[in-house]
């Protein structure tokens, strides 16, 4: 019994000793835990706090609304419209197929769209909205909204879509917006571009002013959980909406110009303010509907535009290369005057001019008889200019043309502008590694041969003549936000005013009795215009055709001559210049002339009406009656 107690006591002594060892081990283990806590929470605490914030906060970009584009008086040309989309959140419906069946009864959804929706439902997280259809009409929105209780998972979201109220009428100026391409994404650093569905300017002003219009991205700090579902918004910065861009365009005139051109299969026209260089109208026909591009153009419509031989997607004002024909003659005349040619010197036109064994024809078969410079311009006598160019050489003509803005891009703030060709001896050597043939000078003198110009260049040339030799440059931007972008004190070209006056007088003669465009004159007093017609060969006319007396109008359309016209008005103290081309329109004076006339008359009438309205407004400010806009004379 004592033995048993002794044994137990011994046993307990061993156990107590070993309990202490065990307790020591536990204490050590607990200390390890405490040390680990200290390490993780205090020493590494900041590091893990950062990681936790990264986990928690997801920064999302908010697309700013794109700046609107307005005309010179504030008429909206490109705006943002609400775009209603029907979206489906798959986790909120038990049966996606069944919901889709119900939606289809309210909105047409193609089978292809349905397949895309089902694919997206599989691919995306169950809480991510899948777009069912965009650009819903108000009726469709209402139909969905009313039936929402019966459409689990479906909701309407509002976004913005670019809208062009003038549609085709200003498409070539405004261009359009489209989704960001892969290369654009790689080359740009703006994070906005990576936003799904973000659209940037692809052509026109939308593209040239894309940066100003785009605005800066807003951000939204969202608290997200482990699977990326948004729990709440922590902070929001809406970013900067894009700047408003005010164009020099006059919407009314633009509309009118585009309408006027649509009478022809293919044509272009541009109206410039000769003092500022502001473009009041820029029309290229045929056109396209930029709204279709903003919403994603259907492939067949796009293919139709591409295949159309009148190339509706090309802005012919800036990218159309044409032989200027007789509209170039003022340059030859000016070059002659500067070279010291006496304007009263007379040349006899028999209808043709022999040079170097070749016969150069005047467009008038019977000839103009004896012509001086004034007559040569108003009658557009080819022989006179052949003779003149022989005396001064091609280089002087080329130099004068370049000073007036031909041969190179005008620097217009519109993408896609093309240069032109003003040939001279150096150019020929550089381009063809050949010497200049004197016979080629004769072609250049009448704006044929190698000479190529765009309508905007011709308009600039005309404007520089009309303003007395100021190197005005064309532009479309009047202001970005409030900052005026217009320049008025243009440098001087350095041509003696009297020379220019002589040429202008000749151009005034074009629309006066006996001139080539007398029929296209402006009769309103104080609004008269001067101009120069041009009919340029598209295809060299063969001797056989000339001898057979083939009527020009009987040739296939594509082979007919281009009709051109440049003009300015009013003749006394010109304000506006215009250039018109009607492709294959055959006769410059008769086809392009009336268009130029109508545009110049319209712009002047509009100005007069505005002035009258302003007068009425200041004369009777308080009588309460509404001042009606002055009656606007219709052209013709």
């Amino acid at each position: 019994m004592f033995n048993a107690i002794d044994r137990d006591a011994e046993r307990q002594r061993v156990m107590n000793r070993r309990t202490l060892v065990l307790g020591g081990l536990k204490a050590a283990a607990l200390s390890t835990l405490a040390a680990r806590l200290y390490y993780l929470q205090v020493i590494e605490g900041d590091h893990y706090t950062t990681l936790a914030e990264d986990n928690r906060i997801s920064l999302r970009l908010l697309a700013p609304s794109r700046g609107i584009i307005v005309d010179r008086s504030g008429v909206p040309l490109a705006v943002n419209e609400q775009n209603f989309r029907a979206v489906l959140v798959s986790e909120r419906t038990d049966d996606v197929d069944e919901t889709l069946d119900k939606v289809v009864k309210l909105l047409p959804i193609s089978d292809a769209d349905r397949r895309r929706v089902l694919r997206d439902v599989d691919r995306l997280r169950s809480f991510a909205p899948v777009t069912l259809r965009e650009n819903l009409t108000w009726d469709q929105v209402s139909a969905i909204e009313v039936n929402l209780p019966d459409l689990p998972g479906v909701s309407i979201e509002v976004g913005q879509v670019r809208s062009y109220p003038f549609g085709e009428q200003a498409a070539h100026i405004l261009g359009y917006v489209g989704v960001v391409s892969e290369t654009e994404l790689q080359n740009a650093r703006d994070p906005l571009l990576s936003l799904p569905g973000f659209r940037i300017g692809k052509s026109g002003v939308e593209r040239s002013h894309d940066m100003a219009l785009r605005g800066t991205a807003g951000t939204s700090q969202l608290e997200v959980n482990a699977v990326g579902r948004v729990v709440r918004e922590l902070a929001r910065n809406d970013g900067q909406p894009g700047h408003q861009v005010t164009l020099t365009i006059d919407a009314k005139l633009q509309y009118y110009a585009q309408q006027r051109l649509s009478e022809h299969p293919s044509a272009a026209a541009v109206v410039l303010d000769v003092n500022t260089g502001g473009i009041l109208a820029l029309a290229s026909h045929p056109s396209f509907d930029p709204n279709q591009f903003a919403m994603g153009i259907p492939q067949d419509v796009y293919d139709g535009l591409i295949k159309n031989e009148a190339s509706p997607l090309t802005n012919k004002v800036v990218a159309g290369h044409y032989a200027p024909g007789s509209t170039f003659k003022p340059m030859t005349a000016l070059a002659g005057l500067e070279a010291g040619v006496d304007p009263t010197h007379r040349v006899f036109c028999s209808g043709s001019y022999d040079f170097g064994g070749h016969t150069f024809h005047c467009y008038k078969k019977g000839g103009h008889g004896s012509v001086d410079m004034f007559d040569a311009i108003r009658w557009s006598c080819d022989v006179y200019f052949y003779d003149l160019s022989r005396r001064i050489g091609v280089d002087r003509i080329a130099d004068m043309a370049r000073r007036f803005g031909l041969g190179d891009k005008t620097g217009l703030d519109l993408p896609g502008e093309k240069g032109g060709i003003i040939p001279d001896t150096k150019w020929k050597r550089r381009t063809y590694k050949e010497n200049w043939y004197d016979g080629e000078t004769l072609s250049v003198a009448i704006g044929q041969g190698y000479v190529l110009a765009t309508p905007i260049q011709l308009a600039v040339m005309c404007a520089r003549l009309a303003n007395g030799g100021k190197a005005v440059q064309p532009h479309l931007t009047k202001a970005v936000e409030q900052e005026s972008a217009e320049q008025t004190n243009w440098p001087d070209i350095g041509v003696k005013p009297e020379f220019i006056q002589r040429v202008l007088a000749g151009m005034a003669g074009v629309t006066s009795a006996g001139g080539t465009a007398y029929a296209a004159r402006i009769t309103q007093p104080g609004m008269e215009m001067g101009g120069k017609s041009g009919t340029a060969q598209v295809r060299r006319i063969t001797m056989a055709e000339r001898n057979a007396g083939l009527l020009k109008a009987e040739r296939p359309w594509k082979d007919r001559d281009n009709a051109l016209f440049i003009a300015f008005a009013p003749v006394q103290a010109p304000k506006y210049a215009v250039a018109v081309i009607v492709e294959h329109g055959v006769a410059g004076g008769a086809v392009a002339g009336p268009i130029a006339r109508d545009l110049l008359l319209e712009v002047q009438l509009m100005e007069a009406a505005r002035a009258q309205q302003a007068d009425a407004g200041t004369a009777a400010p308080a009588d309460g009656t509404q001042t009606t806009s002055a009656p606007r004379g219709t052209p013709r």
Partner: protein
Amino acid sequence: MINLDMGLDPQSNMSLGEKLGQISWSLVLLITLVACVGFAMLYSAANGNFDPWATRQIMRFGVGLVVMLVVALIDIRIWLKFSYFLYGIAFFLLIVVEVMGHVGMGAQRWIDLGFMQLQPSELMKVTLVMALARYFHGATLEDSGRITFLIPALVMIIAPVCLVLLQPNLGTSLMLLMVSGAIFWLVGVRLWKFALVIGSVLAAIPIIWRFMHDYQKNRVMTFLNPENDPLGHGYHIMQSKIALGSGGMFGKGFLMGSQSHLNFLPEKQTDFIFTMLAEEMGMVGALVFLAMYTLLLVYGYVIAMRCRHQYGRLVAMGLTVNLFLYMFINIAMVMGLIPVVGVPLPLISYGGSSALTVMTGFGLLLCVHVHRDVRMSRRGMSDF
């Protein structure tokens, strides 16, 4: 053997009232306090809702409290008497689970009792301690020194460990091994014998490795290099460390743990609940919690040291070691100190079986305390 002290034993036949008076109510209070921390955490884990976890846990704890007191009041000699029997039941249930698991339920660890999911491996954690305590209750130091005497005890340990390993449940089998090791240590088994066993186990690791499940291998590999697998097994532990670390000194505040509330933290209501506690309460809160837990362990030690019979000492020590292992493995795991081995945090983690086991364990601990001076023969029941 003749028990001469029989008439002198003051505790042999206590009335219920005397027993209630003997219960360490301060320990019961401490247990309740720790459990309340658990309720708060479950409330937070549900984003400030009693549903789905806190309410059910409170109800379980209520039932657990009753079970604990009943267990505490039952005469410890009855527990001694039924130690092998209870062990036998737990072992049988392990086999049942194993067989049922193989018959088409996958790796099943539970038996559905209707009102709760019983996990036999949890039961084994308590009954193995009881069985070993009974086995060593009458053993002298000389007995404990004989290898032949140790062999039956080793069989008693290795059989359930193998079954639990087969489930597979690495965490529980390790716990069973370590608790048994602690009991072996306490009854005087020589250190060199442990060294021998550990040495041979280390030598056997390559062979064990070959028999391990792929997911177990993955866990070990992930533990050795968590960044290797940031979206798989390492994800949990990385997110757990982020949550814990971002708690800082004073924590993000109750209900403010962003990691846990935004579901970056996996199993925040069960195995990873300590992480949430540390995230919301900071290091200070976590240390206070650890201190409360340490106090529980100290109670266990005091009860064991005061006990006048080997069975009670071994049961108390075994259960305390058990409690310590639960806590240490769980917390060390969520801190990334040891591999992730699914062990709950007693009194805190949401779960039925572990709550019941833990409360039964505390009941036995209290029982040892109530019956600390009872004189017991080697067989226990002969004293009645």
